[in-house]
C-alpha cells in the first residue's frame, strides 16, 4: 500500500503535502491529474544517510525532498534514537482531559522566550505543533482558544521538543512527547487485554496521568473523573505496563476551573484526600508517584499562561534518580539434578 505522505503534487502551488487537501479539490487525491510521484524519502539520522549512500541519489533529482515536520511515527522514533537519545514522556488521559493542550502550551511558552530556565534548541515536528496550536491563535479567526483533538485513527505519534538550560547548550534534552487519542486509553481501561498494545507506556521515562480539572469542578462528573485516573493507574500496574522502575505523575489540569468554582475549598479537600489514597495504594508499586497541578491555557486569564508547566518540564529535563536495585529471592534447589549442577565445577571455577 502506498503511503500518501511520500507522494507529491506536480502543481507548484499545491500544499497537499502539508495540508492533505488538493488545491483543486480532488477527492480522493489519486483522482487529481497532478498528484503522483514520490518525494525523496525523508531523511533521518544524518550519519546513517552518509553511510548508506542515499545522499547521492537524492542529489540527482531536481526537487530535493525536505523533512515533513509532522508528528513522528514509532518507526521514525526508532530512526531518531539512532541519531541521539531522548527522554520519553507519555501523557495519558481521557478525551478532552487536556493532553494536546498541555503539549501545545509548552510549545507556546518557548515561542515567547526562555521558560523554566530552559531555551528552545530544535524540533523535528514544528508543522505538527503548529497545526495543533492553530485553534488557540488569533489568526484562526476563533474567539476562544481551542485545541485540535487527536483522532484515534492517527494511532501513536510523538512530538519532538529539544530544550537546553540557559547558557548550557551542551546539556540539551530531547523530549519525545507521545500523542494518542483519549478514546484508546479509555478502551484499555475497559478491556485490559489492550494494555499490551500501548507501547508508549513501558517505554516512558515519565508517565503523566491527567486528571481532568474541568470534570473535577463539576459535582456530577467529579467522582467519575477521580475514579478514571485511579482505575487507569491500576490497570497499567496490574497488566505490567508499569512497575518499580516507573515514574508516574498525576497532573490535575484546568486548575482555573477549580479555582473559579464556588466549591473550591471542598474540591481541594477532596483532591488532597484523593492524592493521599493514591499514594497509600500505589506508590510502593512504582519508582515514584507525584502530583502536579496546571492551568495550561486559562481562557479567563486568571492564571498566568502555562501555570504549573514550569515544574513539570523541570522534572522532565532532570535525569531520574537511579532505580531501586531489584532484589531477587535466593534460588533454592529442590531436585537432585539441580544439586548435581551446583556440585559440578564449571570452567570459571576450575
Amino acid at each position, binding site marked *: 500500500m502506498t503511503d500518501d505522505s511520500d507522494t*507529491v503534487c506536480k502543481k507548484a*502551488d499545491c*500544499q497537499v*503535502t*502539508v*495540508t492533505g487537501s488538493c488545491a483543486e479539490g480532488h477527492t480522493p487525491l489519486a483522482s487529481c491529474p497532478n498528484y503522483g510521484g514520490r*518525494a*525523496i524519502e525523508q*531523511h*533521518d539520522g*544524518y550519519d546513517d*544517510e*552518509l553511510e548508506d549512500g*542515499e*545522499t547521492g541519489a*537524492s*542529489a540527482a*533529482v*531536481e*526537487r*530535493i*525532498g*525536505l*523533512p*515533513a*515536520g509532522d508528528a513522528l511515527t514509532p518507526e521514525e522514533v526508532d530512526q531518531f534514537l539512532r541519531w541521539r537519545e531522548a527522554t520519553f514522556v507519555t501523557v495519558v488521559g481521557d478525551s478532552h482531559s487536556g493532553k494536546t493542550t498541555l503539549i501545545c502550551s509548552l510549545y*507556546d511558552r*518557548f*515561542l*515567547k*522566550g*526562555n521558560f523554566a530556565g530552559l*531555551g*528552545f*534548541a*530544535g*524540533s523535528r515536528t*514544528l*508543522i505538527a505543533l*503548529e497545526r495543533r*496550536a*492553530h485553534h*488557540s*491563535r*488569533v*489568526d*484562526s*479567526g*476563533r*474567539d*476562544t*482558544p481551542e485545541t485540535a483533538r487527536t483522532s484515534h485513527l492517527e494511532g501513536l505519534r510523538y512530538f519532538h521538543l529539544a530544550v*537546553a538550560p540557559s547558557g548550557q*547548550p551542551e546539556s540539551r534534552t530531547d523530549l519525545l512527547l507521545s500523542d494518542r487519542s483519549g478514546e484508546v486509553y479509555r478502551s484499555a481501561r475497559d478491556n485490559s487485554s489492550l494494555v499490551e498494545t500501548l507501547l508508549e507506556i513501558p517505554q516512558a521515562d515519565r508517565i503523566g496521568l491527567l486528571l481532568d480539572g474541568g470534570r473535577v469542578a463539576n459535582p456530577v462528573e467529579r467522582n467519575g473523573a477521580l475514579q478514571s485516573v485511579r482505575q487507569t493507574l491500576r490497570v497499567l500496574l496490574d497488566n505490567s505496563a508499569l512497575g518499580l522502575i516507573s515514574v508516574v505523575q498525576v497532573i490535575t489540569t484546568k486548575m482555573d476551573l477549580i479555582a473559579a468554582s464556588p466549591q473550591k475549598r471542598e474540591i481541594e479537600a477532596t483532591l488532597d484526600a484523593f492524592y493521599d489514597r493514591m499514594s497509600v495504594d500505589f506508590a510502593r508499586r512504582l519508582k515514584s508517584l507525584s502530583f502536579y497541578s496546571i492551568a495550561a*491555557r*486559562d*481562557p*479567563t*486569564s486568571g492564571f498566568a*499562561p502555562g501555570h504549573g508547566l514550569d515544574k513539570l518540564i523541570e522534572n522532565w529535563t532532570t535525569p531520574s534518580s537511579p532505580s531501586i536495585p531489584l532484589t531477587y529471592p535466593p534460588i533454592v534447589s529442590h531436585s537432585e539434578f539441580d544439586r548435581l549442577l551446583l556440585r559440578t565445577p564449571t570452567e570459571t571455577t576450575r
Partner: protein
Amino acid sequence: MNEQYHSILGLPRSGKTTFLAALWHLIDAGEVASKLVLDQLVGDHVYLNSIVDAWRRCEEVPRTSMAAETKVTIHVHAPDTGRKIALGFPDLSGESFEKQFAMRFCTQDYVDGFSGRGGIVLFVNADRPSDGMTLTDIGPPEFDAEERGDPASEKEWTADLVPEQVRLVDLLQFLLRPPFLRRQRRLVVVVSAWDVVISPKPTPAEWLERELPFLYQFLVNNPASFIFRVYGVSAQGGSVIGDQRSVLLSQTPSRRIECVGPGADPHDLTAPILWLTGGD
C-alpha cells in the same frame, strides 16, 4: 583569490534586495570608508545596476520575483590586508523560501549553495506585523458564552499562518540534515528597517531576543551548527515615501546607510560580510 559564496535567507519583504543594492553602491562609489572595497569590475552586473538605480533614486527597490532569481558575484578586496575576495550572493526571492517551507522541497542549486565555505545572511524586518498571537495573549473574550463569534470567520490551518520566527527556524533546521553538508557556519542576522526601531534602541541582538525569541533561542542553543552575529541595518536610511524622501535625496547616498553591530562603522555594510568571510 579567496572565493566565497554566501547564502541569503529571508521571507518576502525582509530587505534582501535593498541590502544588496546598497552594498553594491557603497563599495562601488567609495563615498565613505568601508572594510571591503570594489576590486575589479568584471562580469555581468545588469541585475545589480538595475536594483541600485532604484535605490539611488530613493525608490522602493523592486522585490525579486521567483522568475528573476539570479546569482551575483562581486569582486572586492580588504584595504587593510590586501586580501582579495569574490563574494557570491544568490538573490533568491522571499517566495522561494515560503514555498520551501510550505511544500517541503528545495532545488539542487539551493543545496549546492550551502556546500562551500561561505556563511549565511538571514534577513528579518524590524517593520513587521506581530504574528503568532494567542487568544490568551489578548485577554479574556468580552462576551457571554452564548454570544460566540461567527464560525464562518474561522480559518483552517495553512502554512502561511505559521509565525515568521517558526518558519525561519525550520528553514535553518533543514540545513542540519542531509542532503545539506553538516558543519559549523557563520550566520549574520540582518535586522532591516532598523530606522523604525523606537529609541532608546536596544542592541540588534537584544532586539532579536525580544522580538523573535524562538529564533534567538534556536541560534543560541545550536553553537555547533551556527555562530552568529546580529546587525541592525537601514539600507535606505528611512522611509522612501512622503516628505522624508526629499531629505534622503539631499544626502550623499552612502551616508543614508545605517549599520549597527559588532565592528561596524555607522555607514559600512561590509562589516558583517567581512566577518562572514572569516574576519574576527
